[in-house]
């Protein structure tokens, strides 16, 4: 096994997910199958290969910083689960 149930639970926490007892077994098995499948990349020696993060070489695309009027605030807060005085409400954290 590449990854144990406990490690899956740790990754789930980092992912802000949880799996209940019924799901975790089957999830861990399938997760392991995929990790083993991915292993085949180790057949390749890539020590001298630089990574590609983007298919097209573009970086630092600049534009003029021009202020534009936006009246989207009402539309944006309208679709939030909970709002008060144009602010998103979340459970208390302190």
């Amino acid at each position, binding site marked *: 096994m590449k990854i144990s149930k406990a490690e899956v639970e740790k*990754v789930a926490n980092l992912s802000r*997910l949880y799996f209940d007892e019924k799901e975790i077994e089957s*999830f861990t098995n399938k997760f392991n*199958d995929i990790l083993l499948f991915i292993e085949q990349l180790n057949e390749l020696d890539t020590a001298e290969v630089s990574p590609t993060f983007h298919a097209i070489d573009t970086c630092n695309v600049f534009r003029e910083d021009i202020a534009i009027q936006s009246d989207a605030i009402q*539309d944006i807060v309208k679709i939030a689960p*909970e709002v008060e005085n144009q602010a998103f409400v979340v*459970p208390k*954290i302190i």
Partner: protein
Amino acid sequence: MTNFTELTISQLTEGYRKKEFKAVEVTEAYLKRIEEVDSKVKAYLEVCPEIAIFLAKEADKSIEKNEISYLTGIPAGIKDVLCTKGIKTTCASKILENFIPPYDATVIEKLYKEKTVILGKLNMDEFAMGSSTENSAFITTKNPWDLERIPGGSSGGSSASVASRTCAFSLGSDTGGSIRQPASHCGVVGLKPTYGRVSRYGLIAFASSLDQIGPLTKDVRDCAVVMNVIAGQDNRDSTSSTNDVPDFTKFLEEGLDGITVGIPEEYFVSGMDRDVEDGIRKGIEILKEAGAKTVDISLPHSKYAIPTYYIIAPCEASSNLSRFDGVKYGVRAEDYHNLLQMYKETRSKGFGEEVKRRIMLGTYSLSAGYYDAYYKKASQVRTLIKNDFNEAFKKCDIIAAPVAPTPAFKIGEKSNDPIQMYLSDVFTISVNMAGIPALSLPVALSGNGLPIGFQIMANHFQEGKILKSAYNLEKNLQLSLKIPNL
């Protein structure tokens, strides 16, 4: 009486020019067709008859004044991954079940400017993650050629709607084959443009370095017409290209003299599906008869495309999907005592199994101690895959290949085996890694009457070469693509 739903975009435009019929009549015909057949095909998540008729009336006003552009009065279906202001956009996920975007995607703005008629939103695999559209949280779309089979995915609603004539064209998105594979399975034309050719603003992001929006159409000319509208630089997507956008239709009538077709040995392996191989070989013969030359090429790292993809795409997805947390939009879970629990409840109830799997894979691959072994390694292999194409395009103008290893499989056949499902994208994924354009065109029907797609790839920004090759192939094939009565 004209059967409007059988007409191509070009034929509809011709009719509008000659004032033979109105956009409202055409739109009503499509709405009627949706009512008649979509309960069986289930391509649409949401149909918007009132909006469609309103837009059709607007289009008719323009047509009356002879202001007719490429897509004026043309009824379209939109994959539910594209934000449409005022129209629910769910990404086929429970977490966005109630999401009504406050803005339009750039491609949608462009359609409105043309006075295109939007009929509704199309089903897909949740967050575009899948190859069969079975991962939709809401409905299972059927293949119009055989209702027991999948339409392909993730743009399965987009392909099934064009094939079942419930829209004149549709928009989809392609991250690893999600336009081409469903187009192949449903017998329609689908193009994944060059990365950066079409603005991704308003496309709900899955894997930002791979995602690209493109058209699914009844024929090749229509594909070029839609590209004329959706392509172009956009300040709101910094990865959109400043390259000139040609009139894509002008390539179509060009002949194939001087075109060299590369045949990649890795895409023609022993034991491949007989019908698929015969179809692709036939397509290559027709390209030769039309004046093209062929050359054998090699894309030696092809077999690593899938494992590479299943690191890179989930890594990007795990980052992109962290925004779905129940705070700013979408659904928030009801039972929680603190913030962390609110996030976890919301996400665990809101996302389906495949989406969770990919978020987990990405988080794992990017986490401390694993980054070099997974994400960095995959990004290096991506370079090798990209270099394969650079080498190949020194010898040829286009590459011919299958789209999918088999015709459409049965619903449920692979849904419990992620790796088998992933392998169905073996011929389409490399293209996204390299960011090059590729198209799927129906080339044959299998022994049991299912469509088989022919894939044409070209180098960056060479959609013109793809379109003229596909146009010549389509013209000389004379394939009859009549779907069974629904």
